């Protein structure tokens, strides 16, 4: 089963890369862009058929490795419905 994860910087944390990208876009003529935040995307294939279990495992993966919880948040993006 494939589950995707997006890692982003926490709200208050400085994103120097995003800032430079935004300024460059403005310079290239995209003046309506007023903020860019850069993050990371992961596609994870888990050997699991139960969606709930896969979700739980993925969350553990995010917490233990993919996200630096000091300065990053993780979001599991999938069609998985938590109900």
């Amino acid at each position, binding site marked *: 089963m494939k589950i995707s994860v997006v890692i982003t910087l926490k709200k208050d944390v400085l994103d120097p890369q995003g800032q*430079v990208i935004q300024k*460059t876009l403005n310079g290239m003529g995209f003046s309506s862009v007023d903020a860019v935040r850069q993050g990371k995307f992961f596609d994870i294939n888990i050997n699991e058929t139960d969606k709930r279990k896969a979700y739980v495992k993925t969350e553990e993966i995010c917490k233990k490795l993919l996200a630096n919880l000091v300065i990053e948040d993780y979001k599991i993006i999938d069609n998985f419905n938590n109900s």
Partner: protein
Amino acid sequence: MNSSVIIFPGSNCDRDMDVALKKFGFNNQMIWHNDVDLPKSDLVVLPGGFSYGDYLRCGSIAAKSKIIESVINFINSGGLVLGICNGFQILIETGLLPGALLKNKYLEFICKNVFVKINKQKNNYFKSIKKDILKLHIAHNEGNYFCTQDEIKQIEDNNQIALCYSNEQGEIDEKYNPNGSLKNIAGIFNKKKNVLGMMPHPERMIDKYLSGDDGSIFFETLLNNIN
């Protein structure tokens, strides 16, 4: 001989390149990335450093600078361009050189001396170079050269590989590859062989009191060939 070194925000080997070019007899000027025109030059250099902090992708943002259009025109009219380290990355991002430069295989910045075997056939950079195995210096995080199967075939067919990591005897082998580059590639020419992009820093090897002075051979040869 006139040269121009382009400074981008975050370039930091510009002064080193200025010192080296002047030492070997170039009449060098420093050009700001936001300028539109290049002065009359025989050689244009994109120096090493961390332009725009290496943000997004190394060289990606510098490749969008105002000055780049003039550089492209200069290249199209046959002018010689040299891109060192970050300069190489910028040339790749502009599409002036083929391929891509990825993160070093062992995921670490690496600063050390290396040997390189020079390709001195039919190009203006290394023609008649007196030594074709040079001890040069690398300092980079993303020097791992990569390109597709088709691209590498074209590059090889057209003799565009400019230098390869080797040992002191010039043997090119995986063992002597510091960053995982395809075929130990340390530098590449464009099709017309008037653009050279290379990871090693010859400007840091121009004095025996520094890491070495094989860089002197590089600059002397370049000056002679342009003449």
